[in-house]
């Protein structure tokens, strides 16, 4: 029998506070299990967000002991060596209540970065053949597995300091699309990520890379966008 965990959870909105609960420790327990235990057995008014519980949907990210993490795949044993957990909502996003943040700014920036596929063909055309070993497709593969969890966005101090900054996830998405041979977003997308708050605001802190649960490297993707937009700017294809 393992002992109890001392768990501090953020309660309330922006001006809330931490409240501490005792939760029985179990083998192979995840942080999401802990939060769920509090909601089911201690306080049913606790608000938090999750869906798949297996690291696919990207909805359960929270701040765990000072770091943004996907809670469903974060084992308590790995992050709470001292038997203490402090769980709060993600940073850099408005708090709705308790552990739930408003993800709207995050997704609006995906739109601003034109992180949307711009098709070049219709259903009547033949399916385009993409070689998996082509250089462009390899760049896409390296960055495509984003689950929109917002961990990188919460970890990024450039987001914190610059309200306009599109953030690592949106820019990484723009990068994968720019490398997609079937996509027609091209110049317009490069223009969109070159305005104030675009890829050039990145300081390469690399917190995104360090904390991405999918082990993606947004800093490298953003560096790619910096090179490509610089070339486009110098050729006069985009304007500042």
């Amino acid at each position, binding site marked *: 029998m393992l002992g109890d965990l001392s768990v501090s959870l953020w309660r309330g909105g922006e001006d809330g506070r931490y409240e501490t609960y005792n939760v029985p420790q179990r083998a192979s327990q995840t942080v999401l299990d802990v939060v769920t235990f509090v909601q089911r057995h201690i306080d049913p008014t606790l608000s938090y967000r999750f869906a798949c519980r297996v690291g696919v949907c990207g909805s359960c990210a929270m701040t765990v002991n000072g770091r943004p993490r996907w809670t469903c795949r974060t084992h308590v044993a790995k992050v709470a060596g001292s038997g203490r957990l402090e769980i709060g909502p993600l*940073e850099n996003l408005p708090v709705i209540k308790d552990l739930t943040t408003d993800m709207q700014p995050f997704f609006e920036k995906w739109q601003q970065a034109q992180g949307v596929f711009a098709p070049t063909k219709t259903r009547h055309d033949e399916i385009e053949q993409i070689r998996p070993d082509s250089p462009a497709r390899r760049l896409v593969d390296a960055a495509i597995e984003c689950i929109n969890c917002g961990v990188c966005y919460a970890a990024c101090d450039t987001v914190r300091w610059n309200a306009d900054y599109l953030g690592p996830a949106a820019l990484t998405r723009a990068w994968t699309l720019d490398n997609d041979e079937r996509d027609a977003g091209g110049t317009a997308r490069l223009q969109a990520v070159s305005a104030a708050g675009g890829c050039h605001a990145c300081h390469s802190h*690399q917190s995104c890379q360090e904390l991405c649960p999918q082990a993606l490297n947004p800093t490298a993707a953003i560096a790619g966008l910096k090179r490509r937009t610089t070339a486009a700017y110098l050729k006069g294809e985009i304007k500042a």
Partner: protein
Amino acid sequence: MIARAIKHRGSALWIAALVHRLSGLALAIFLPLHFLALGLAIDGEAKLESFLRWTDQPLVKFAEGGLVFLLAVHLLGGLRVLVIENLDWHDGQKQLATLAAAVSAIIAFIFLARVF
């Protein structure tokens, strides 16, 4: 907003970016003073010479060592940023950042050892 320790801020690369910014800021503040000092030569060599003798004080020399460190660390840190942004991705960024700081400290130390 929520008062809480942001732990990833302690990471070597976050500190490297902070050092880069602070060294750049300090150099930007120092530059006008540097230019004003050299501008003393407009009124003749003697004016510049008397200023240079003022800088012989140990405390000023020590500060000059600090400036050499700031210049070197901003240069090497900046080269690291240019490499990240313009070349293919290389791992080992933390080691590179630490190396940049260490080399800068050595340069500043040699400078101090020579002027004292």
